[in-house]
């Protein structure tokens, strides 16, 4: 396999083992296109749901990791008084689509070191009338000064430029991206909480949808919405003692602002640590039963197939043509890889920072057997990947983890 290596971003450290840490209580709050509730409602109700499902008391939660774009003047610590929690470990992770995996990495170390015993990791965001415009136009200082003034397209514009470049460079066609979007819609049709799950999507509808920016049409773009996603982390011993179904972390890593020398983004940090990720997990790409990528636009999922070792760089279009991405493996293609099994952001909706937790929460739900109509059969290993923060012309954050079903 050929992989372009970067001269200045070569992480030499190898993350230590995540042994003994359990992930439980994957919980999602039903998304809504618009809501009068603020971010604390979505974060608080996610916490409530996790406690209800596990029977753990609020006072027992001694760690809190939160990600949200819409807390306004508040930070994670303000929420402790809102919810009357008294955590001895707190973390706020404003890393958009990579927040979930990064929260997992931070919280796992706190559990291993005994800094906290039960940590709630939650991503939640509100969606008020026209609030997306404000988020997009003030996303970062570079955005304000140097990208938003050029057409006011928000993330659609930046990703359209990346998508167009990828299509020109590697010969990807809109039909290839359709393959990703259609399979995800099929998955969403089996996941009741998906905002677009009640609608089917055909290739004709996808190809003839309203034009948005360059090669991006309506069904390439995620729908901003409100929602919450979360999970609890604790020691494996505690999860067994509480008789909770759990999963384990085999490996995890992250790298930010990788490949600054690439003129246009064709990859992110995954390419630099994917080998050590598989090594640490003792697995290869074909051992992965479920893959959850960050799908803010189909081209980003395609880059993850490449960078996470499922195919070579530039082979993404061909890979999706020969791979069945449906959760129930009912597609006609011979190669099977259940992908974004709840429908991903493209069909469930993008609830701000909760979108960075969605792939992780869905994976935990799958591996603990709590998925309902969209349960993947015979799945023990799931790979979850995060991507985020279009500061200027490219996404900066990359993170990935491999999870395994626990023997509860």
């Amino acid at each position: 396999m050929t992989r372009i290596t970067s001269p200045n971003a070569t992480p030499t450290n190898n993350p230590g083992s995540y042994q003994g840490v359990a992930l439980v209580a994957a919980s999602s709050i039903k998304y809504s296109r618009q809501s009068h509730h603020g971010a604390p409602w979505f974060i608080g109700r996610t916490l409530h749901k996790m406690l209800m499902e596990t029977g753990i008391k609020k006072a027992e939660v001694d760690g809190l990791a939160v990600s949200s774009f819409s807390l306004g003047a508040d930070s994670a610590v303000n929420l402790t008084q809102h919810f009357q929690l008294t955590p001895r470990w707190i973390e706020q992770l404003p890393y958009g689509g990579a927040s979930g995996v990064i929260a997992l990495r931070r919280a796992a170390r706190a559990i291993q070191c005994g800094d906290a015993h039960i940590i709630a990791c939650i991503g939640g965001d509100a969606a008020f009338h026209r609030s997306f415009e404000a988020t997009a136009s003030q996303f970062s200082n570079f955005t304000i000064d140097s990208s938003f003034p050029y057409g006011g397209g928000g993330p659609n514009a930046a990703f359209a430029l990346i998508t167009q470049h990828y299509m020109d460079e590697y010969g990807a066609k809109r039909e290839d991206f359709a393959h990703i979007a259609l399979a995800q819609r099929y998955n969403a049709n089996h996941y009741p909480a998906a905002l677009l799950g009640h609608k089917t999507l055909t290739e004709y509808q996808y190809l003839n949808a309203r034009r948005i920016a360059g090669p991006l049409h309506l069904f390439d773009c995620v729908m901003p919405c409100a929602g919450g996603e979360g999970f609890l982390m604790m020691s494996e011993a505690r999860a067994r003692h509480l008789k909770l179904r759990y999963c384990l972390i085999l490996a995890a890593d992250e790298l930010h602002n990788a490949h600054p020398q690439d003129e246009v983004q064709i990859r992110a940090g995954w390419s630099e640590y994917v080998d050590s990720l598989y090594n640490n997990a003792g697995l290869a790409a074909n051992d992965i039963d479920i893959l959850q990528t960050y799908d803010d636009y189909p081209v980003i999922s395609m880059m993850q197939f490449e960078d996470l070792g499922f195919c070579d760089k530039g082979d993404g279009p061909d890979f999706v043509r020969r791979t069945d991405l449906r959760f129930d493996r009912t597609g006609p293609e011979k190669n099977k890889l259940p992908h974004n099994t709840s429908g991903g952001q493209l069909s469930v909706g993008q609830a701000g920072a909760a979108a960075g937790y969605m792939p992780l929460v869905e994976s935990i739900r799958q591996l603990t057997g709590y998925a309902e109509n969209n349960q993947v059969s015979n799945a023990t290993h799931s790979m979850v990947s995060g991507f985020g923060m279009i500061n200027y012309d490219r996404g900066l954050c990359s993170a990935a983890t491999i999870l395994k079903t626990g023997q509860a």
Partner: protein
Amino acid sequence: MSNKHTRRARLKLNRPSLRERARPPKQRTPMGQTFTSANYSGVLVMQHCQQCEVVQYPPREICQNCLGDELIWRETSTAGYLLSRIELHHSLWEYFKRRLIDKPWPIATVRLENSTTVFSHLYLASFGDLPLEAIRKGTAVQVFSHSDSSLNSVLIAVSAQCDISQIKDRAAIAKTMGLTTAAERPGGI
């Protein structure tokens, strides 16, 4: 409540679609404001590091290479090549929404000779009859700055053959693109 007061209240409620005149995004950070004022007197002005001479864009506080803090605003080469280009059919900003009623709005990312990457408005007419698809990565372009109708300096990319040596040439391009005038809505407030 006076008529004037209700008008102001409506504008505060962020309903730009009712405005008679919509303009490009006004908002900038203090660095962005400095970029605007530095470019009033030049074709293309960017920060240059005093220590290592690396050119910086987007405008910033600290040199991206050596972390030096002596960044001097100086003229830089307008030459570069195209990285990617698209036409916007949808915008979050009222000014562009109105411009998009007639035709899509082309934008591009350009790699300049000074190794910076810039977003820019793309002046398609300077490429003759070429459709957008035919303007491939690597096409030679020039990028200059001009003030828009919000009085901010913005970047415009044109073909390498286009004459932009005179201020009147550059002003004519910005005007043809509609950047120097507000997008009007008859009967707006």
